[in-house]
């Protein structure tokens, strides 16, 4: 069993935000009850329509996405998606949330306080919101945001970090100091495709694994709070590398698209080790 803040997980393998929808989409293919936890698609206070097409590019050993946080908004999530997901699984649900201001994060957290969920993941590292600074690129802003959220909730708070920083350990330390129960890293890298015009997006997949590993290791040497490691985990060997680098748990990201059953397979293989 693994403990992340107050949250007890039956196993240390989660599915990463943005790669598993609201969980419901996978119900026919994946035994959701076997997952350590489900981190849902990032929810914002109001529904978001997301970015225009094109949104998906395959690249060697990975992909670039530019979804732009399309989501149903907090109200519909609480009224429809969350109850539906809870009806089909007992696995803890970690709700990923995003916002443009600290006030928005706080308002979402206040509403989620009434919900029986496993925890909250603060997405302060999405590379796909044009015109907005990535909060987790500043240690000071990261502290301010987490501190404001921490004061308002007893839910387990996990902070998701961007790899696109000078020193990720500084940001992780800031998250810990502000009261985050854990950090999850890494989010996708800001990247670009040039197809007639420049298209910005987030780079993910096995091509970022070794950068993620290094960051997980460095952060594990700096903070005491648990780390959820992610970035290009495709199989059990990858997962083990993250554990060895200092992660307490791991999250499977775009490998879910490649093989929806991969997280379960990793869980079963880890049990045998």
């Amino acid at each position, binding site marked *: 069993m693994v403990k992340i803040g107050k949250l007890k997980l039956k196993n240390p393998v989660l599915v990463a935000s943005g790669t598993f*929808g609201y969980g419901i989409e996978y119900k026919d293919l994946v035994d959701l009850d076997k997952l350590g936890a489900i981190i849902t698609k990032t929810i914002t206070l109001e529904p978001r329509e997301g970015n225009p097409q094109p949104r998906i590019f395959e690249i060697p050993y990975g992909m670039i996405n530019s979804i732009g946080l399309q989501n149903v908004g907090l109200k519909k999530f609480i009224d429809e998606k969350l109850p539906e997901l809870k009806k089909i699984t007992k696995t803890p649900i970690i709700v990923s949330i995003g916002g443009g201001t600290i006030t928005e994060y706080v308002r979402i957290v206040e509403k989620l306080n009434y919900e029986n969920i496993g925890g909250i993941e603060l997405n302060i590292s999405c590379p796909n919101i044009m015109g907005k600074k990535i909060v987790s690129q500043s240690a000071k802003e990261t502290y301010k945001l987490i501190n404001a959220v921490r004061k308002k909730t007893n839910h387990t708070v996990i902070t998701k970090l961007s790899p696109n920083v000078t020193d990720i350990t500084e940001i992780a330390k800031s998250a810990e100091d502000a009261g985050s129960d854990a950090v999850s890293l890494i989010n996708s890298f800001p990247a670009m495709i040039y197809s007639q015009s420049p298209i910005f997006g987030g780079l993910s997949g096995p091509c970022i694994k070794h950068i993620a590993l290094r960051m997980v290791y460095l952060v594990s040497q700096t903070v005491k709070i648990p780390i959820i490691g992610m970035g290009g985990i495709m199989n059990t060997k990858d997962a083990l590398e993250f554990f060895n680098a200092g992660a307490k748990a791991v999250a499977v990201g775009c490998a879910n698209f490649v093989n929806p059953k991969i997280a379960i397979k990793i869980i079963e293989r880890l049990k045998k080790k």
Partner: protein
Amino acid sequence: MYQIDAKIISNKKISEKYFLVTFLGDKIARKSLPGQFVMVKVDNEKTFLRRPFSICSTGEKTFSILFKVVGIGTEILSKRKVGGTLNIIGPLGNGYHFPLSTSHFPIFVAGGTGIASLLFLASKIKSPQKPIALLGFKTKSEILFETEFKKLGCEVIVSTEDGSYGKKGFITDIFKKFLLSTSYSLLPAVYACGPKPMLKKIAEISKKHKLKCYVSLEEKMACGIGACMGCVVRTQMNADEFEYKKVCKDGTVFDAKEIIW
């Protein structure tokens, strides 16, 4: 929706650049509806994501997909050997809206690989009169399924862009001329599948003639099951608002009226 390792029981080149692969997979075969698709993992080395393909036909325990070699994924798939297996998720999407009321008969309008789902539809749809199949290709060497549509009782009109076979021109122009030159007692219902610019024109022409029109859209996909939100299309929500719908989950078939082209 199933995820299976499906054995390839045939992989044939059926015209210039077009291949038809048939898989053994009774669960998918039994559940598939015309307009639905499968996500195929073509290999584990040179491609990362799965590839979506419309289901072209089903047997008792088999299903087939049609594809044109256009990139690395389809290139690899074209070389996959009989007896090998590929991991497949399906059937996915919502399929075509049918059966028709007795006051309608279908016109199928196909461009390129779009022909696959329409052939499947033609094999399942019941029509009060001879259905019409308008099949568009670039050139003579690419033509396929002309005989198959005829065998299913359709009146078939083939066009090639270069005029090397059948009528010369884009299938959209053939469709337009057909509507103007034909008188019919029952109302046509249009089912179209092909590249987006073609579907846009078909939708416009259908609208002008006040015809029901269903389009099956293509889009790049990562998951194919509605989770990643990569394959969206702009649709009309109400008079002044739009909504991105998922081609994989809300489609691939849409009422053409919904789409903001």
